[in-house]
């Protein structure tokens, strides 16, 4: 069980580290992807394009540090729920855009990103549960 827990945490951490890192390498392209959702304008999109990847990277590191794990999980859960709302709104408006979730080189559709985020939320809740069980 301990091995499985660590494997899950490491996989999550690597995923979010990669997701954040890829976007940090191409902040302008990520800002363009944010603008593609047609929800916010220039400066706000640019702020989001810088803030979101760093939050992912910081949370990915936090996942690996025992005391910070729960906070990192909550941060990622909050972000994923927020992304789900945005993705649903894009789907509702029939926008045929690339989700921009993993930078511009790894394109994925909005509907695929929605499903993947649900899986990630489930895994994070599992990590949160075993983490709280351990602390009790």
């Amino acid at each position: 069980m301990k091995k499985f827990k660590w494997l899950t945490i490491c996989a999550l951490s690597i995923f979010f580290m990669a997701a954040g890192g890829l976007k940090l390498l191409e902040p302008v392209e990520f800002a363009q992807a944010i603008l593609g959702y047609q929800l916010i304008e220039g400066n706000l999109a640019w702020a989001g394009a810088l803030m979101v990847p760093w939050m992912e990277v910081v949370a990915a590191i936090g996942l690996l540090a025992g005391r910070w794990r729960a906070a990192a999980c909550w941060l990622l859960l909050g972000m994923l729920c927020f992304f789900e709302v945005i993705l649903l709104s894009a789907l509702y408006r029939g926008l045929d855009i690339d989700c921009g979730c993993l930078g511009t080189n790894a394109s994925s559709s909005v509907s695929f990103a929605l499903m993947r985020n649900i899986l990630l939320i489930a895994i994070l809740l599992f990590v949160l549960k075993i983490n709280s069980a351990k602390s009790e």
Partner: protein
Amino acid sequence: MTVFRRLLLLICIAGLCALVQALIIGRVDLSIEVDEWGVELNEINSWESILWVDARSRDAYEEMHHDGATHLSEDDWDTGLVDLLMEWDMDVPIIVYCDGLHCANSREIASRLRTEIGETRIYWLIGGWEVLKEVPTP
């Protein structure tokens, strides 16, 4: 330290890193790159006839599209291309549109069409459906 405090600290650290990155990068231009194939709506007002190609999702196309537009996307390229070729009079230029200013489908579809059909007068509309939907249909 409580989980909530740690959470706030993580957000602050991320914000600080983002701020430093913003200061390093400086001012950026988020306007899209317009190549020679991009056309503005006011440029084409004088064109007598245009074949419109809708490169948005099938659902969005079926819900509403520009008058006379045919649907073509990467997902159903073969069917869409046949429909397009049946509609197309070879003297008429083709303009592809997608959702808005920041979608790339129109550029990609226009580029692929130029390669596959060998026709050069295939353009993409700057602003896409966002500007085209404001145009009254006859």
